[in-house]
């Protein structure tokens, strides 16, 4: 019958085409990077690395489930470097048993101790401070995180989902600073102050401030860099121009530091190119790469003394909350449960 045979041929053709999807085999001068960071962000850095060292970088972008993927690949996994955002994810990778400890003088010199794993299982590559977006015309200059629960802000606060890692990171830090009970009270207070559902992204906080939905919000700093540096006339620029930045501190913080999260990396447990992997990490904290992070992504470099983007510099110097990130990571589960208990996202 004329229908079936042509379908068979088609099927065979596509099966053959399907085989062309096979991955390339492992090679000498290359390194395999599994990352949750958007390719556009890090591609320039990787290109520079290849140019300087001749080592090819094969990138796999995995938005969710990096741990599951690497775990499932097991011993044969070709992953060399695992790059992730958020301390919680990095700690998960370690606890999931897919990383290995590496030591490198370069890494240990450049990265402060509270921003790397004591055993060398993960290293911070850039800082992402979580700060306050404030309506430009509002007359305030300092804020504490705790004050967001103050009734004077009722109906004026915007923030993304409480379960989002950026927020659970902040809540974990707060638990470490103020204790579980106080943090629960704080969360309830903030929820009562919400101008709209805790949803959307960080940039939506700026947009909603412009839209008059709220006056203050909590979001990451580097988005402001993006927005204020956008071309005039674009939406992003309009939103950026509607806000100013205040770096909040913790009420009881002795050194009055701001909460930061990080983007970081680990070397995979069964990395076929371990040496190249460490080389890549060391490259990423070099002066050149760090200034790329600073200028291209508006994140705060983990390396001291790197020249900042003017917009970022205008926020003032960043004093990092000295609490070790490893400590904060321990509270993640509690923080997430607290969000559920309070029904923050409902």
């Amino acid at each position, binding site marked *: 019958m004329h229908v079936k045979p042509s379908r068979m041929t088609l099927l065979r053709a596509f099966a053959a085409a399907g*085989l062309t999807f096979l991955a390339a085999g492992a090679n000498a001068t290359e390194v395999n990077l599994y990352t949750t960071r*958007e390719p556009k962000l890090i591609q320039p850095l990787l290109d520079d690395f290849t140019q300087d060292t001749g080592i090819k970088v094969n990138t796999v972008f995995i938005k969710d489930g990096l741990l599951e993927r690497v775990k499932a690949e097991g011993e044969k996994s070709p992953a060399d470097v695992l790059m992730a955002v958020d301390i919680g994810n990095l700690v998960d990778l370690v606890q999931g048993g897919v990383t290995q400890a590496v030591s490198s003088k370069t890494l240990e010199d450049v990265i402060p101790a509270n921003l790397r794993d004591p055993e060398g299982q993960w290293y911070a590559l850039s800082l992402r401070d979580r700060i306050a977006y404030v309506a430009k015309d509002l007359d305030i200059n300092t804020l504490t995180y705790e004050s967001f629960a103050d009734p004077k802000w009722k109906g004026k606060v915007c923030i993304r989902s409480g379960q989002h890692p950026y927020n659970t990171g902040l809540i974990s830090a707060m638990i470490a600073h103020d204790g579980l009970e106080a943090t629960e009270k704080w969360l309830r207070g903030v929820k009562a102050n919400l101008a709209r559902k805790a949803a959307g992204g960080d940039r939506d906080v700026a947009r909603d401030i412009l839209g008059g939905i709220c006056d203050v919000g909590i979001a990451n700093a580097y988005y402001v860099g993006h927005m204020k540096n956008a071309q005039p006339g674009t939406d992003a620029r309009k939103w950026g121009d509607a806000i100013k930045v205040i770096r909040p501190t913790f009420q009881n913080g002795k050194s009055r530091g701001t909460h930061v999260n990080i983007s970081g990396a680990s070397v995979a447990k069964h990395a076929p190119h371990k040496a190249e992997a460490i080389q890549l990490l060391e490259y990423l904290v070099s002066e050149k790469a760090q200034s790329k992070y600073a200028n291209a992504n508006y994140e705060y470099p983990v390396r001291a003394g790197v020249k900042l983007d003017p917009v970022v510099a205008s926020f003032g110097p960043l004093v990092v909350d000295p609490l070790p990130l490893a400590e904060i990571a321990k509270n993640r589960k509690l923080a997430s449960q607290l969000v559920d208990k309070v029904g923050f996202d409902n």
Partner: protein
Amino acid sequence: MASTTEPLPLQASHSGTQRPRPWLEAGWGWRAGAALIAICVAAPVATLVWLAGMGDAGHWSHLIRYVLPEALTNTILLLAGVGVLVASLGTGAAWLVTAYTFPTSRILSWALLLPLAVPTYIVAFAYLDVLHPIGPVQSLIRNLLGYASPRDFRLPDLRSMTGAIFLLGFVLYPYVYLSTRVMFATQAANLIEAGRILGLSSRGVFLRVALPLARPAIIVGLSLALLETLNDIGASEFLGVQTLTVSIYSTWITRSDLAGAAQIALAMLGLVVVLIMAERRGRRRQRYSNTQRMRPMQARRLEGGPALLAMALGWLPIVVGFVVPVMYLASETAKHLHLTGGVSEQLWQSGLNTVRISLLATIVVVLCGLIVTWAARGARPGRPARIAGLCARASTMGYALPGTVLAIALLTPINGLDHALSWLRQSLTGMSPGLILMGSSTALIAAYTIRFLAISIGSLESGLARIPPSLEQASRLLGESPTGTFRRVHLPLLRPAIGASALLVFVDTMKELPATLLLRPVNFDTLATWLYAEAARGTYEEGAVAALAIVLAGLLPVILLARHQLKSGH
């Protein structure tokens, strides 16, 4: 009368069968194939159960107290709201376009399918901008009312249950529209005309004849739309509605609690089972094999006031579900292109990848659907085909699994298979080829098949049911074997159903996001994953380009489907 022993000249052959198979039952080969497919679909579900079992009781009790009740309530409310909206919009539109003729009604009949090309996450993303206080709509309203700033006047926020119901309803109604319209256009003529002759008003004809007749079609379309709602992650997430799917994501991603996510997923599966059982029960009582001549219904002509009303009602869903989002995406794309002057190479590559893999997946899905549906014919209690019938139901389950959970559940079996293959290859040839399956698109195709088999099965089952049994009997008596009958009678008559399901599957695989993100091979992007990457970065303007590309690409199958509808419907 002397009886002669002389045999009469006959052509009947003497070969018969011992223990004859009951009529209408497919051979064991078909049934084995169906069983294999059902197992492949069920395997991930089994993995889920196993994964769920690995979680600790402490976390389960936390989920029950704080997460599940809210998520369950929200999900049920969302389903109910979307269900009502989708059923009314879809059925109303189908009736409007079949029973009446008015200016633009012919265009409408296919244009009403357009929202199918717009994925739920894109429509949410578009409207959040369009209806934002500083967006075009509210700015216009403020201008008209004389308010200067959004701080003086604002409409309620779209990020709510109502907003979600509204958006999902206007983008998912085509499922009901599609199935109901086919029913009205081909089956209803005689009965509807009888109703009119008996003096029923138009509304009476609609409520008392057309609606009950269309019930199976409505239920089929409704169940597809509701399953789509259950699976949606993008729209619910953007709009802040804590559905079960959103909870699964947050449980897995932020708490890295795979077991907990699997537990919620199982709860969702329970909901789906209820949905599917209700749908089957609703359909069982109906006989939809129409032995009457199939001819189109006589449409009544509308003019003047009623015609305008009909036009307004008919175009409204299209405007909301398609025109507005597309215009938004087009303008954002134009802005972006004006600013940057071009489209990236990555976008082109993503597009090609998307088309290739969707085509492959569609072929696999339709073939599997044919095998399963054919094997399940004649499924009755006590018959062996009953198992094939259960296989068909089991194969439908995959649609219930949210893409991400399905992907995770698939990782384990596929990985096992991979290691086995690798071991085999190594022991046979001494070569270590690495991970073949994970590196290829096999895992992804498997995921698409599991997820979308239901579309193929549903369409083929109702297509098969529309073929009167007498056709098969006639073919058999004319000397054709069961397989020959399938080839020469059923397949050609199933072509519309095959075509319709192929197109739906194609469009759905193109739009698919969560499973693709996890299961795709190295450096392989589809349009959807590229769009999400852009959105993750926060650069919505560039994301709009990919979104527009998805919608445009998705338009083609929709238009083909619409044209095909036009041909067969009239």
